[in-house]
């Protein structure tokens, strides 16, 4: 989902950095010092996930993990995504420095939406972990689609000629959404079983399941 150098127009580049600065400031306010290593762990997981490719039909997609990051970290996911994207740009030339702002928005907005969806609907699920994991999977599948829509939007804003390629890209990401949803379901179900306090609001759910067991 990364947008590379040379594609975006200047208002989009500047707007992307402005939005990222706002999101970063918001996230920095919410971070407590002891959370730093956890955020970094997820940032590194995001970085590494782009190395895991799945073959789907004739093309191959890689996981984005944006939804999972939102669900695990909450608002500070913005910082993990910013760090992961920064190192992807520096170490692999994946994305780019001028597009770092836009790329952060493309991943951070879906992550925050996934977080909101998961915490909102997760309360309904109570301590039924499979249902919680299912909600997490659905939220992160949705996150991929929102991300693809954002890519289409910034390409369109950068030039009407780019609409066609943005559309092709979005269709390809419908498939990725399904894969990502399935992976998130499995991952969250396992985390809820083994280490529930790892998830943003998992402390509550963790205590509940412990007091029951």
């Amino acid at each position, binding site marked *: 989902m990364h947008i590379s150098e*040379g594609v975006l127009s200047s208002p989009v580049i500047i707007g992307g950095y402005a939005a990222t600065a706002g999101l970063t400031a918001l996230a920095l306010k919410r971070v407590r010092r002891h959370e730093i290593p956890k955020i*970094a*762990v997820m*940032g590194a997981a995001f970085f*590494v996930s782009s190395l895991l490719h*799945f073959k789907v039909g004739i093309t191959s997609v890689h996981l984005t993990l944006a939804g999972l990051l939102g669900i695990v970290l909450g608002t500070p996911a913005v*910082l993990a995504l910013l*760090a992961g994207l920064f190192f992807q740009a520096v*170490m692999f030339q994946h994305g780019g420095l001028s597009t770092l702002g836009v790329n952060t928005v493309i991943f951070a907005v879906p992550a925050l939406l996934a977080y909101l969806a998961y915490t909102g609907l997760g309360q309904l699920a109570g301590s039924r972990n499979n249902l919680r994991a299912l909600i997490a999977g659905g939220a992160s599948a949705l996150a991929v689609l929102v991300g693809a829509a954002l890519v289409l939007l910034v390409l369109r804003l950068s030039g009407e*000629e780019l609409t066609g390629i943005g559309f092709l890209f979005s269709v390809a990401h419908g498939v990725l959404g399904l894969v990502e949803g399935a992976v998130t379901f499995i991952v969250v179900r396992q985390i809820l079983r083994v280490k529930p306090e790892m998830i943003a609001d998992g402390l509550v759910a963790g205590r509940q399941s412990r007091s029951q067991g």
Partner: protein
Amino acid sequence: MEFDSYAELGSPVHSWEPRFKLPAGFALILVCASVSETPALAAAGLGAVVLIALSRLPLVFVLRMLKAPLVLLALMLPLLVLTTGGQSVWSWGFLHLYKSGLILAARIAAKSLTVFLLFIGFFATVRLNTALQTLEHLKVPSTLLAILLFTYRYIYLYIEDMRKLLTAARLRGYSLQRGLRHIGTSSGILVTLLLRSYEQSERVAAAMRLRGFNGSFRGLTRFHRSPADLLAVGLTAAWICLLLWLELR
């Protein structure tokens, strides 16, 4: 292969002090990514080539760094040429080659290469940990800086851990090429990686707090400013003004 493996050469670009070089480079990259007029693009490209020549980075290294962006361009530009719409210069069946697509593709390719060359020139000539330390001098919030440093550290742990897990899985008949049929195993590898490093990060954080970690990192690099650093900043500023003039006139 490391991004900063040629960060210790003695060229003028290498000896430019990072507290000045990195902000100047960032500003120049933003301007070059923003221009779209042909003369401005040509001047930007020329500047990037001059920078790379001054930096004395080996050509093989520069080409290897450019490989990923070039592959991406090779995948994207043909699609772009066929999808932009407008006046068609050639058609075959339902496929049309569009004039506006060709112009846009050429512009994107030129701009992309320019920016990546600048990026390599400015950032591959500093060690990555020095660059991060520079950010501290540039008043990047300490929490964000700590997250960047920890992430950088964990990336290597992850890559190492993942290699081990993938080897173990492959011995048991797993293959990434099979893709979706092994999605359960792939997710399992991901869960293992996450849980393992999460627990490790908790222990690391506790150990650091016990040793008095208060959010600031210490490094061995000492920065020294010289008149040449300011001259280089001046040259970059002049270059930016020239590009903006070519773009806006």
